[in-house]
């Protein structure tokens, strides 16, 4: 039995380049995990390290090839007149809804990898510490435009957002 949430998925997909971004990010993690094992091996540690290093590398590469594509298929976002709505997560699926009238701040972030790929994330925060909604992996110019529009809408909405 598999029952999904009877909400329609958000309308938009993230930018295609987000797949590259996630792949690079995960590749770095794999390298960070594998290199110390190889160094230890070179320094004369027991041979089973070769096996674990190989296993890490293979599993890591499979992850890099499979998961980012999956994430791209799943990650979706939408701004309606009333809400910011996102869907994310490949294992634990998570839907987040933030009413526009409750939005306090709109931020854009560009990590180093995102800058390389001309990507950005937009985070919308509300008065709750657990309320932020982040749209990851948008094209840079698109994110800036989105942040501008969101800021304008939230400022035009009356209320103190709590």
């Amino acid at each position, binding site marked *: *039995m*598999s*029952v*999904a*949430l*009877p*909400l*329609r998925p958000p309308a938009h997909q993230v930018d295609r380049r987000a797949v590259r971004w996630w792949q690079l990010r995960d590749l770095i993690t794999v390298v960070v995990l594998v290199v110390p094992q190889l160094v230890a091996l070179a320094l004369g540690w027991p041979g089973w390290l070769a096996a674990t290093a190989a296993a890490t590398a293979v599993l890591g590469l499979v992850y890099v090839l499979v998961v980012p594509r999956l994430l791209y298929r799943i990650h979706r976002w939408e701004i*309606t*007149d*009333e*809400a910011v*709505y996102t869907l994310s997560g490949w*294992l*634990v*699926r*998570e*839907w*987040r*809804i*933030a*009413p526009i009238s*409750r939005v*306090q*701040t709109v931020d854009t972030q560009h990590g180093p990898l995102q800058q390389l790929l001309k990507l950005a994330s937009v985070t919308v*925060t*509300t*008065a*709750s*510490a*657990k*309320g*932020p*909604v982040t749209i990851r992996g948008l094209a840079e110019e698109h994110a800036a435009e989105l942040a501008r529009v969101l800021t304008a809408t939230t*400022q035009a909405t*009356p*209320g*103190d*957002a*709590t």
Partner: protein
Amino acid sequence: MSRPARPDLRADSRSADPLDAGPSTTPGPHPDDTPSSTAEVPWRRLDPRMLVVHPVASVIRLLPAFAVILLTGREGDLTHVWISLGAAAMIVIFGVLRWRFTQYRITPDRVELHSGWLRRQRRSLPRDRIRTVDLTARLEHRIFGLSVVKIGSATGGTGEHAGLALDAVSKAEADQLRRELLDRSPAARPAEARQVAPPSIELARLDWAWLRFAPLSFSSLAGIGIVAGALFNVLNEAGANPGRLAGDAVDRLIRTGLATAIGLIAITVLAAAVIGSLLLFAERWYGYRLTREPDGTLRVRRGLLTRRSLSVSERRLRGVEVAEPILLRAGHGAQTRALAAGLTKDSQGGVLQPPVPRGEAHRVASVAAAAPPEEITCAPLRPHPPAARRRRFTRALGPTLVLVAAAFVVDARVLGPASLVLLPAMAVVGWDRARVLGHTLTRGYLVARQGSVVRRTVALQRGGVIGWRVRQSPFQRRAGVVTLEAVTAAGSGAYSVLDVAPDDAVALMTTVDPDVVGPLT
């Protein structure tokens, strides 16, 4: 309800670079966070009596360290005396600097606090974000007639940034601040009107019979520490070596017989826990009163040595929670707390009362929220789908099975069989968690209950929900349930309805927020 236009959205806290804003710069208004219209509001300092209180309190707190330094020195050698004097002088100097570089002011729109002399901090809270004011007077403050003012606000930040503290101002000033900061209606209400305002209404006061719940709270564990610590100090002062005494006593007991030894030790620990928890209850709850003030706040006053007064703006109260830790529940007790933004861990999560009989807890929840009990914490709850109840068992027993297996691997003769006790215990916990699970939507509130070791019934105002999160793990996907979280500015930030059917989750969200969620279905 008329809402003011949203001003600057965040309480900003910044610390200037110590290199270019060192101790020599005098504190003053920051160019870009102070509108020119408020520039003339004068800056105020903390009470000058803090010049005495802070150093004295620090010295008392460091007394054990001083004692060690002074006592360990060799006779005739004065170095240790100099070290102590130097340290004391440093404390005094730090105290003076701290006072000198701490300034605050209340402008019509904001509360501003500048503090720190090495690491300068400028903090500024918009006044319409202030939700709670907590006055705390520890013993050292009370002797000098002072009080610490903690201002809790609703901002998206983490606990540390969700408010600020003035440590400390005079009691009169603190009371004045409490009224001024939470009273938002009256920009120009004349002073006389305030004096003829109706007196505060008492909603609850301490009943010493509630003392029977003290040993049932988790603080009885802290009680053991307190009693043990006090005994240790007394014996130490008397010149005995408590560590050796205890060791000798245990040795002698074991020689008389292991069973007696274990029994006696258990009784001692139990007695310590009970006495300690009674003392702690008295210290925390002496003089407890819950009142509704004419300025529209709920106010909790309590404390024997440390006097506390917590004020929560009623208009900003987003709901109530009745918590029943397992021991307290066994004794038919419970404790109610307020859900409002700006309640930090310091105010013990906004507790409105000591542990009390369950009926009293629900009564206080009801008067605090100004809603009948059957619409909030006593509402009849809808049970969750069978899959949700099944998951309570699998989640309680699964990890336990792993633990038991591990125990058998480590030591199959004693530890393994002994660990089998866990299985029925956890099965009972799972059964209870399944039985407790429930939620409902009443006229004004979302009510949800869960938990066995600590059973919590949360009633959250529909209007206090400022967003939704729905999570579904792979296991939940197979079981056909989701966890719905109602995001709110109050309390822990989000309250969950565990394992509901996806259809129910969406129906619930749509009922509460038709404009927002409706178009998404």
